């Protein structure tokens, strides 16, 4: 027990009033454990929804977008440099496909930030079985690449996606289509494209993503097959889907790709703005709750230290008479606050972890969500400890300063 004398006095004051110390520490403990719990829940759910959105959408989608006519185009067309005034410009119908898609794919594969890339052809079709017709869209993909990027296998409920390459004229359909048209693996389905082409295909697999609008409309087929169904040649590709190693850099990489290829590269953040808005709103709600909890804990400490100072005012006066400077007295009371903060903080971290762990074991079972998504993210724990200790220091500072201003003469003389 060889501490600095200020520390020793602070500790003695804390241990001689165990109940008050524990009550104050409990306040900090609840603040910190709630902080961790809330943050874990928020990050867990956010991560989950992000991951969910990536099961259908890539990190970046590269596609050709119609442009509004402008002066530059007109000048190129007329081949002169005179100024033109363009009135009422219109959207220009460009070829929906990308020019030289496999060249672009080969070039992008060299980019080290890209983890997966696959071209795709999408066409609007009408599925028919018996007399029932169902509108939808067919995606022509390389199913093995698609599977690597979007885990199609994980969504399969019947059949096998590998049969898409083995069986001629085969198709994977969403569970919604299968239910509505009463189709099973091995049955035939009629697919009619917009240009009137009619093909009969064999169902080799059924998938369920839990996103209803996808399950009710989407089907996969071989890319070459889809190109022929919609009457296009082998170089026709409507979009290139790109996944990155770090999806948080999607907007930066998307800009680069746009510059290189000249096509529109849409990152997932832009495509999922409502998701991001949801994250933000949740963050505001949770942070306000955490803020209030820490504020209340801070007031608890403030109150208890204030009371201690009123109780100990004579002792403070005598310490000052014996040569304790104002700074030493401040240090004594501030250290008490810090000890309360550390004590509450350590217990709070443990409690926060246990709470998070217990909740992560709660079975939900909605859609593909089995358990509550909780994240165990170490920076949350460090942040919680830091905020907890900062709160206690802020709460302890004002009473400590008051104690340092005690005038020994007025107190001792009465």
């Amino acid at each position: 027990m060889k501490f600095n004398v200020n520390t020793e006095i602070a500790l003695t004051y804390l241990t001689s009033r165990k109940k008050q110390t524990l009550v104050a520490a409990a306040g900090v403990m609840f603040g910190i454990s709630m902080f961790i719990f809330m943050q874990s829940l928020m990050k867990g759910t956010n991560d989950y929804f992000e991951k969910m959105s990536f099961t259908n959408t890539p990190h970046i989608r590269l596609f050709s977008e119609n442009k509004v006519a402008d002066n530059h185009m007109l000048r190129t067309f007329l081949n002169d440099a005179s100024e033109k005034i363009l009135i009422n410009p219109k959207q220009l119908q460009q070829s929906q496909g990308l020019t030289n898609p496999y060249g672009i794919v080969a070039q992008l594969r060299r980019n080290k930030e890209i983890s997966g890339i696959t071209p795709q052809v999408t066409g609007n079709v009408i599925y028919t079985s018996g007399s029932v017709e169902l509108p939808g869209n067919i995606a022509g993909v390389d199913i093995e690449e698609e599977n690597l990027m979007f885990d199609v296998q994980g969504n399969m409920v019947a059949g096998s996606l590998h049969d898409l390459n083995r069986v001629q004229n085969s198709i994977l359909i969403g569970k919604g289509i299968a239910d509505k048209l009463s189709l099973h693996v091995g049955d035939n389905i009629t697919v009619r494209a917009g240009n009137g082409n009619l093909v009969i295909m064999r169902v080799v697999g059924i998938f369920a993503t839990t996103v209803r609008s996808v399950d009710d409309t989407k089907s996969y087929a071989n890319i070459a097959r889809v190109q022929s169904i919609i009457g296009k040649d082998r170089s026709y590709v409507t979009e290139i889907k790109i996944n990155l190693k770090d999806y948080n850099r999607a907007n930066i990489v998307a800009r680069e790709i746009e510059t290189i290829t000249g096509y529109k590269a849409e990152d997932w953040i832009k495509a999922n703005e409502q998701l991001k808005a949801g994250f933000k709103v949740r963050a505001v709600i949770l942070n306000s709750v955490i803020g209030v909890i820490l504020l209340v804990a801070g007031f608890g400490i403030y109150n208890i230290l204030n009371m201690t100072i009123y109780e100990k005012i004579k002792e403070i006066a005598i310490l000052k008479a014996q040569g304790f400077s104002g700074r030493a007295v401040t240090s004594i009371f501030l250290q008490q606050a810090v000890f309360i903060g550390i004590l509450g903080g350590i217990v709070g971290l443990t409690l926060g972890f246990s709470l998070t762990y217990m909740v992560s074991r709660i079975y939900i079972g909605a859609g593909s969500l089995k358990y509550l998504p909780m994240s165990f993210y170490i920076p949350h724990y460090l942040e919680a400890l830091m905020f907890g200790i900062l709160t206690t220091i802020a709460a302890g500072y004002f009473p400590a300063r008051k104690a340092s201003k005690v005038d020994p003469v007025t107190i001792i003389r009465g």
Partner: protein
Amino acid sequence: MDNIALKASGINKYFHDPVTMQVLRDINMEVHKGEFVSIIGKSGCGKSTLLYVLSTMDTDYEGTLTINGTNTTGLSLNQLAHLRNESIGFVFQFHYLLPDFTCLKNVMIPALRLGKYSYAEVEQRAYEKLKMFGVEDQALKKAGKLSGGQQQRVAIARALINDPAIIMGDEPTGNLDSKNTGIVFDLFRQLTVEYKQTLITVTHDEDFARRSDRIIEMADGQIRR
């Protein structure tokens, strides 16, 4: 000059609440090293006020105060705190021990604050001081558990822990019976003789005052003799 422990010149002090009133009028005094001085006077004559000015705790006065050759007037509060820690010991009418600490710790705290000796040495010295006052067997008890006489003796031991040049007492024996008063007086006397420590006490006890080296009698904020 070397022989002077404390010198006050031209000290004036006013109380402003509720009305401005002069409590000390042109106080000039010198106390020699090893001198045992008693300040006496009727209640309200300003003797305690004077002691608190001399103690450097009260800085709201006019005039100059020199302690051990250091001019203390105008020093910062932190500098004064350090000076008190090192050179002045206090004994009050009420003991003002910290009740949550053991007697030993109470005695040790000013020395730990000063930081001149190691923890073990401070502990050793604190034991010696307690022994001087015959309360060493109470050393490990909480200060709040002692009788009034014992507490006052621990408080005096605490005042002596840093071997201060000057010991100031505000009615140090005011709460003690005649037997304990006798013990304390003899110890004070011993300190001045053997260790050349200076003692300034404010007292109501005529007998105590008469046995000290010099009596300063105050009336109406002035030194009578």
